[in-house]
């Protein structure tokens, strides 16, 4: 019974936290952008605008759901669902903490500890393109279609360098299990730098970060929805809660991507220097959980700051960077890493 109940409870908790985080992420984004642009931002609903997200959700629920006349109804409705499902399900393999002991039972703080976890995430992210492509196609609108096509081209191009930049880590860890990858990032380099992959694989980290921006369709790579050119891009013809789902999916995949970056490069739930203090195991578990949360929030903030400070690329520039810079660079990174491992430096 425990075998089934335990994952369900974990799924519910993670889902709840993610959904809450999404709604406040929207608020944070609006606040941050306001400060960057020297404005105040939402401040009317609730104290400091804290209930703004609730208002937004309620608004989306009550909006009319309009489906274009010649749209393909079935696929039109299915596309946002695919986006959301993919964005949330990816979180299943990410370890958000070490073990925790509650009422005498030990629980692993990961929903599914799959031994090809890295590949699962890559596979699921590559499915995300379907939501966008199909929504673009089924809307029967040229702007939507162009947005959909752009996104599939963009995501396919950046998936390659994304995958290859990870192989360096896999070579060092000799495992594709995410818990193993996080566990390997304990300890220190030279006794004081945390043994995180960002320090061992700096080029890999940069490539991965840039590719993540492209994969999540965030600025400066948000060409699928470039407002100035494509009205709203792939979701031009969506309204009401279907649009809300796309909105949800975008932020959820941002969270998942941040969690993935933290897991792979920033030590996951590892909290450095924690062993110098005499905490009880339960406190350590809690500290590790919060270390993970803080890191994720930090990466999310970085995502938002980038969005409001850097202008959008042109489409040909985007493709050039992907194929002519990122891909060769990631291959070079792989070769250098393999060579260093061969001569026993890494």
């Amino acid at each position: 019974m425990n075998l089934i109940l335990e994952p369900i409870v974990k799924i519910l908790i993670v889902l709840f936290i993610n959904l809450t985080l999404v709604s406040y992420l929207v608020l944070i984004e609006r606040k941050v952008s306001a400060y960057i642009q020297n404005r105040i931002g939402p401040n009317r609903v609730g104290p400091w605008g804290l209930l703004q997200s609730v208002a937004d959700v309620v608004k989306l629920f009550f909006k009319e759901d309009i489906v274009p006349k010649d749209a393909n109804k079935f696929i039109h409705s299915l596309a946002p669902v695919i986006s959301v499902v993919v964005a949330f399900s990816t979180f299943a393999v990410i370890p958000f903490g070490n073990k925790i002991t509650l009422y005498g039972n030990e629980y692993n703080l990961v929903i599914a500890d799959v031994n090809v976890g890295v590949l699962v995430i890559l596979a699921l992210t590559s499915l995300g393109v379907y939501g966008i492509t199909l929504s673009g196609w089924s809307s029967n609108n040229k702007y939507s279609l162009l947005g959909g096509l752009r996104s599939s081209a963009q995501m396919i191009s950046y998936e390659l360098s994304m995958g290859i930049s990870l192989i360096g880590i896999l070579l060092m860890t000799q495992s594709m299990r995410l818990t193993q990858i996080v566990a390997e990032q304990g300890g220190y380099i030279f006794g004081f730098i945390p043994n995180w992959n960002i320090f061992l694989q700096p080029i890999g980290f940069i490539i991965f970060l840039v590719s993540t921006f492209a994969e999540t369709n965030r600025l400066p790579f948000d060409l699928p929805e470039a407002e100035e050119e494509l009205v709203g891009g792939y979701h031009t013809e969506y309204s009401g809660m279907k649009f809300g789902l796309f909105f949800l999916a975008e932020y959820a995949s941002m969270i998942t991507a941040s969690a993935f970056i933290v897991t792979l490069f920033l030590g996951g739930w590892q909290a450095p220097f924690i062993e110098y203090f005499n905490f009880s195991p339960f406190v350590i578990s809690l500290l590790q959980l919060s270390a993970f949360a803080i890191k994720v929030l930090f990466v999310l903030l970085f995502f938002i700051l980038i969005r409001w400070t850097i202008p959008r690329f042109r489409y040909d520039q985007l493709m050039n960077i992907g194929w002519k810079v990122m891909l060769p660079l990631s291959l070079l990174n792989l070769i250098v890493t393999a060579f260093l491992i061969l001569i026993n430096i890494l």
Partner: protein
Amino acid sequence: MLNLYDYIFYFFAIVILGSSFVVVFSRNIVHSAFALLFTFFGVAGFYVLLSADFLAITQLLVYVGGILVLLLFGVMLTNNIVNVEIKSGTMQTLPASLIAALIAGLLCGIFYVSNWYLVPTTPELLNNTTAVAIGYAFITTWILPFEVASVVLLVAMIGAVIIARREKAPEVE
């Protein structure tokens, strides 16, 4: 007596068969491509049932994440932008279905009649991770096919570029 394993098997089997029927018989080529998505998922499910985890994920990554996206991409570009009707109807229905039925019957027949080579399933076989074993196999026993496959892919890639490249207008010298 059917156990859980069998139920899951039949579930995936129905998914594969049902979706491949849509692939073949749908008149709308985007629907066909879309149904192919479920066929690939079903096959990945089979791999999971056979505890071939690496293969299952690779199936998703390569076929669903790569090949099918490109397929949809091509279909959308030609179908919606260029306004070319892609014909996906059927011709010669009667002889084709007769031959197909004959071949299907024959193949189903031999699957029942024949004695297949069976590998005894051991717990190690079921629980070991396959990724490491596949990796070692690729650089030892199967190194030659592995390398040959890379030559095949290189040639295919250059070939695709040659076909797709737009020829420059003759230069005026």
